[in-house]
């Protein structure tokens, strides 16, 4: 039963990451610097919403299989049963969300947005590669599917880090400012959540591969890794920045005001 609870929490963690970063990226819809890049970032947002759906659907299936005895929330709030992908996305409150803080911080400028996506998607690349060995075949299948999309996200965001970092004085200064602002949120990527118990997971290896890749790209772009090492953490356990509440207020309003409405 503990294993089951851990897997559900881990699935919700992955789903929440995808949903929240998907939502953040979708905020660029209609605001991208040029039409082609506006389309790119919204396509990436769509990929994330698709990944979130897969993880939520699987979490819902596991919850519904063992509805009794699984305490799903940290705060003891009831979760609506039977669970669905929609109830998990729209009817849990801030403290129940397990997304990493890096996914919820505001978009900032284009440098902040593309840098955050690079740092996050390279982490996902490594994490999902490990998940290919997950004992639950459906988790492995979602990872296999997602890796193909994440490959494009890494490529696209990496190109922007290089382009801005190795660009004009202004673009370089902006990309370096983005690094200074976001760096404190990268440490949380490598803190293994208590519920991430699958044997295939090795966060130290993820961190080593990530460091190697990020250092290489920063070096090529002429960007510096900050010497400050303070780590903002807690998202995976439901302790969030003030920003998540605002996202959920916007995202969940309709379902809460008009329960079960469809469109």
């Amino acid at each position: 039963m503990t294993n089951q609870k851990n897997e559900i929490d881990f699935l919700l963690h992955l789903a929440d990451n995808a949903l929240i970063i998907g939502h953040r990226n979708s905020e660029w819809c209609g605001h991208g610097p040029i039409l082609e890049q506006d389309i790119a970032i919204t396509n990436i947002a769509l990929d994330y919403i698709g990944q979130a759906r897969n993880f939520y659907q699987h979490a819902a299936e596991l919850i519904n299989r063992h509805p009794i005895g699984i305490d799903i929330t940290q705060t003891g709030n009831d979760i609506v049963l039977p669970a669905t992908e929609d109830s998990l996305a729209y009817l849990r409150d801030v403290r129940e969300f397990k997304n990493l803080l890096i996914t919820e911080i505001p978009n900032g400028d284009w440098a902040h947005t593309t840098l955050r996506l690079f740092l996050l998607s390279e982490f996902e690349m490594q994490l999902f590669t490990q998940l290919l060995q997950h004992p639950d075949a459906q988790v492995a299948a979602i990872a296999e599917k997602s890796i193909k999309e994440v490959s494009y996200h890494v490529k696209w965001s990496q190109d922007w880090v290089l382009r801005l970092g190795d660009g004009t004085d202004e673009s370089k200064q902006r990309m370096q400012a983005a690094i200074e602002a976001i760096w404190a949120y990268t440490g949380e990527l490598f803190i293994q959540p208590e519920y991430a118990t699958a044997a295939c997971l090795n966060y130290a290896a993820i961190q080593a591969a990530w460091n190697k890749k990020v250092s290489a790209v920063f070096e090529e772009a002429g960007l510096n890794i900050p010497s400050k090492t303070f780590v903002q953490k807690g998202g995976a356990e439901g302790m969030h920045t003030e920003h998540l509440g605002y996202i959920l207020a916007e995202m969940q309003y309709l379902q809460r005001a008009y329960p079960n409405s469809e469109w």
Partner: protein
Amino acid sequence: MVNNTIAINAIWKILETVKDPEVPVLSVVDLGVIRGVALEEQLVTVTITPTYTGCPAMDMISMHIKMALNAAGYQTTIQTVLSPAWTTDWITENGKQQLKAYGIAPPVGKSFDQTYLADLIVPCPQCNSTHTVLVSQFGSTACKALYKCEECKEPFDYFKCH
């Protein structure tokens, strides 16, 4: 058993009439998303796999498959599987020709080794020139990239390797 085979062949024929809503020249069979067809009594189970996880066309494709088979008198359920993950290698030769004729450059090369992430030479579907440039890796839908032909100056969609 023989009757069953005949019936399943007939179902595949029906599926060939169901088109991708985003690329209406391409049938779902040519797109490579039909993973299997099973028939028990009058109940058909069609197993499909999504192209992209967030592709909004997938819900529509499921609905169109159901409608086409219901019209032929079959009860239908749709089952979705994710693994093995769909790749552009599963688009049939016929499908690739249809894409080109429609003005969308078909995938270049194989998808399994990720060399597709490198810069590729994608021939223009209009004039066949290889003098083309990538405008954006993400085009009008998740599955397409946007290119421009330097020869005939036409922009075109490229069905990117996946």
